[in-house]
């Protein structure tokens, strides 16, 4: 007689979200390769991966900005029609985009209510909308004034508007794309507390990030993407940062080897420098850059870094204060003058400012030096010399580029940044401004850039490193300053301040100076 074995069946709740076999190609690039993932009710899943791993693409497909080439999306058991953000919104999916999708010249109310009423309806129930926003603000700790213009809000407040947009539409699944990239550590805590309230209310969350610390703190499960594929899935409680890092990168991460600094001459001095206009201005900052050292500037973007970078790059003059280069007062100032003073600049935005996308690699590499005798004589350009220079840089800086005559926009981000780095370092500069030099780069390129900067430091250059990545700043800098609302904290030597102290400075709380 057959033995009947009764197997107890644990009834698992259906997932609120299921992505099955999502594949997406952009030309020859496979951004997502047969990715499957599920999200349970009340769960926080972190989507982890370095830049370019395919996280944002995947979420754009979920939200309907892109159409997948293969695979399907199911929300609450129902298949979602592809490429239709409205369908996603109606199904309860809300997205907090990495680059906020808010219209600055309109009010908070207008931004939140946009698209929520039938398009051809003759009127607009403003008062009802205002009340609903106030209610949601109070329930979830997202204080914001509905009638203020978005342009008047801080970055943290703008993010609250993004979240409220989703909650206003009764989102039950919330996707957050790199939400903490623009927040101070204190604001991040506030965000996490809001997320916990949302989960208590029954929402499910996907949290995209490349920051291991936060992933470990907030998520229940982690899905790691690498090169467009799922590299691994773990329960957060059962893993650690080291394992996740290894999954993200596929290899052991080596911290850069930093030798002891050899302090050279003082090459740049700022005393009491203030600027005026255009974003957050500088307020009486003091800064010294010495040869052979890296000075790191920590701080969330929007606190005056742009003004300082523009100042050093030659795009801006100080309104007050002393500005000296090698102890000589700066007179007429411009990008050309900065270059002539031996300053090399790696700009924050390689696409908009660092390179001219539709010009060739050759034309781009001579953009800062085309008037030198090496490349031009009596107004005529020597293209042969220019091409030779481009070839030199491509070789020396390991840039994957089939021909220097191709348009630079076709290079990958990492290769473009290496070229820009090469262009900057080729002049053997004595001062280097590196502004977010590794933003958006994969780990290999990051390591390369760090290596070259350390080489320049060993050769005696003074480097100012501006970065949002606190880990990068701490790893590379000999001195660390913090920028907050246009003011610069006094520098501290490597290891002198703890991470917590730096976080406080970034949030504007004065660290106590008692030795």
């Amino acid at each position: 007689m057959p033995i009947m074995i009764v197997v107890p069946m644990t009834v698992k709740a259906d997932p609120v979200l299921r992505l099955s076999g999502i594949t997406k190609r952009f030309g020859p690039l496979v951004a997502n390769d047969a990715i499957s993932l599920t999200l349970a009710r009340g769960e926080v899943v972190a989507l982890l991966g370095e830049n370019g791993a395919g996280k944002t693409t995947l979420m754009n497909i979920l939200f309907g900005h892109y159409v997948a080439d293969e695979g399907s999306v199911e929300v609450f058991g129902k298949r979602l029609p592809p490429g239709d953000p409205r369908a996603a919104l109606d199904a309860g999916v809300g997205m907090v985009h990495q680059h906020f999708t808010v219209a600055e010249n309109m009010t908070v109310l207008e931004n939140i209510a946009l698209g929520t009423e039938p398009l051809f309806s003759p009127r607009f129930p403003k008062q009802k909308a205002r009340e609903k926003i106030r209610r949601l603000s109070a329930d979830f700790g997202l204080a914001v004034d509905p009638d203020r213009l978005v342009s008047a809000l801080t970055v943290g407040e703008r993010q609250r508007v993004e979240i409220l947009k989703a909650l206003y539409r009764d989102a039950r699944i919330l996707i957050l794309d790199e939400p903490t990239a623009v927040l101070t550590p204190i604001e991040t805590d506030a965000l996490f507390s809001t997320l916990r309230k949302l989960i208590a209310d029954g929402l499910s969350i996907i949290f995209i990030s490349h920051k291991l610390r936060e992933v470990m703190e907030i998520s229940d499960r982690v899905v790691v993407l690498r090169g467009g594929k799922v590299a691994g899935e773990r329960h957060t409680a059962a893993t650690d940062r080291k394992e996740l890092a290894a999954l993200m990168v596929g290899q052991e991460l080596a911290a850069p080897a930093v030798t002891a600094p050899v302090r050279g001459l003082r090459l740049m001095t700022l005393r009491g420098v203030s600027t005026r206009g255009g974003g957050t201005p500088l307020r009486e900052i003091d800064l010294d850059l010495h040869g052979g050292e890296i000075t790191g500037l920590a701080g969330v973007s929007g606190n005056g870094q742009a003004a300082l970078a523009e100042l050093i790059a030659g795009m801006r003059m100080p309104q007050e204060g002393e500005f000296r280069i090698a102890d000589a007062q700066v007179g007429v100032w411009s990008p050309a003058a900065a270059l002539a003073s031996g300053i090399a600049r790696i700009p924050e935005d390689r696409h908009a400012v660092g390179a001219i996308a539709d010009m060739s690699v050759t034309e781009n590499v001579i953009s800062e030096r085309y008037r030198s005798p090496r490349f031009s004589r009596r107004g005529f350009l020597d293209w042969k010399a220019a091409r030779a220079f481009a070839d030199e840089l491509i070789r020396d800086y390991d840039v994957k580029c089939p021909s220097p005559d191709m348009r630079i926009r076709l290079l990958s981000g990492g290769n473009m940044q290496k070229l820009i780095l090469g262009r900057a370092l080729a002049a053997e500069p004595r001062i280097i401004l590196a502004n977010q030099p590794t933003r958006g780069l994969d780990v290999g390129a990051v390591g390369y850039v760090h290596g070259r900067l350390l080489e320049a430091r060993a050769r005696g250059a003074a480097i100012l490193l501006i970065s949002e990545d606190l880990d990068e700043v701490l790893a590379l800098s000999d001195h660390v300053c913090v920028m907050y609302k246009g003011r610069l904290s006094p520098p501290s030597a490597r290891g002198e301040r703890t991470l917590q102290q730096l976080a406080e400075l970034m949030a504007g709380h004065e660290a106590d100076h008692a030795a």
Partner: protein
Amino acid sequence: MIEAFEILFTASFWVAAIRIASPLIFATMGELICERAGVLNLGIEGIMTAGAFAGWLTVYGGGDLWMGVAVAALAGAAFGLLHGTLTVPLGLSQHVVGIGITLLATSLSYFTYRIVLPQVTSPPKIEPFQPLAVPYLSDLPIIGPALFNQTPLTYLAFASAAVVAWVLYRTPLGLALRAAGENPAAVEAQGISVTAIRMGAVMAGSALMAVGGAFLTMSAFNSFFFEMVNGRGWICIALVVFGSWRPGKALLGAVLFAAFDAYQVRLQQLTGGAVPYQLFLMMPFVLSILALVIMSRRASYPKALMVPYQKGER
């Protein structure tokens, strides 16, 4: 000297001013809608010509005046569709496409005119709109005849400005349109198609522009002749900037400008032949440039104006 001032207090001056303002109001509102949605429509001069011609042709062919207005609007919408298709989904240069549309619409109008009337020396006349007096209100001094004894098309012009203002600021459609001109990503993220909004705006705006052109043939002059738009389209582009992209201010700008134009005509008559008439004719254009310079300083233009949008742009 006193006569120069006295002109400002005659009813006939203001009647002329409001009449001259009417096509400008239509066209300025039309361009305003396009630009608020993020599209610069440089086809305005050609579309006004096409509207003038289409309206005139319909009436010349036996249709009634309002049918002429409708046909003009349709013609405008058709060119708007062409402009929109090239600049919105295909993202081609709005400058080049606009100039191309102006050239195309103008030359098509002249070509068709020549086919219809191969031999004429003076363009045939049609029966234009007649002034329609509003009872009681038209008896008020000066503003009575100026505002309340005009042709129905003038009343429509002012009504259109009011409708545009109301739609832009009080309806969900207007909200979406404004957002499309400020940050199209915001519109897309709320599930609305930017392409649909921008195309709709360009077509509706072009229809208004064409009606402005039709005013010239069916209410101001009563026939169609070459070069009749005479730069009004370009002036309306300046008026949109002058009005800071707001319908109320733009309406005011159009009326002020028209008043200036009416004034220079009368001033010409006053001075006899002492001052070359060309100097007077130049003044509207010079004024437009001045208006642009003054307003450009503080212009709060739609942030996404002339920036083509690609869905899911990374």
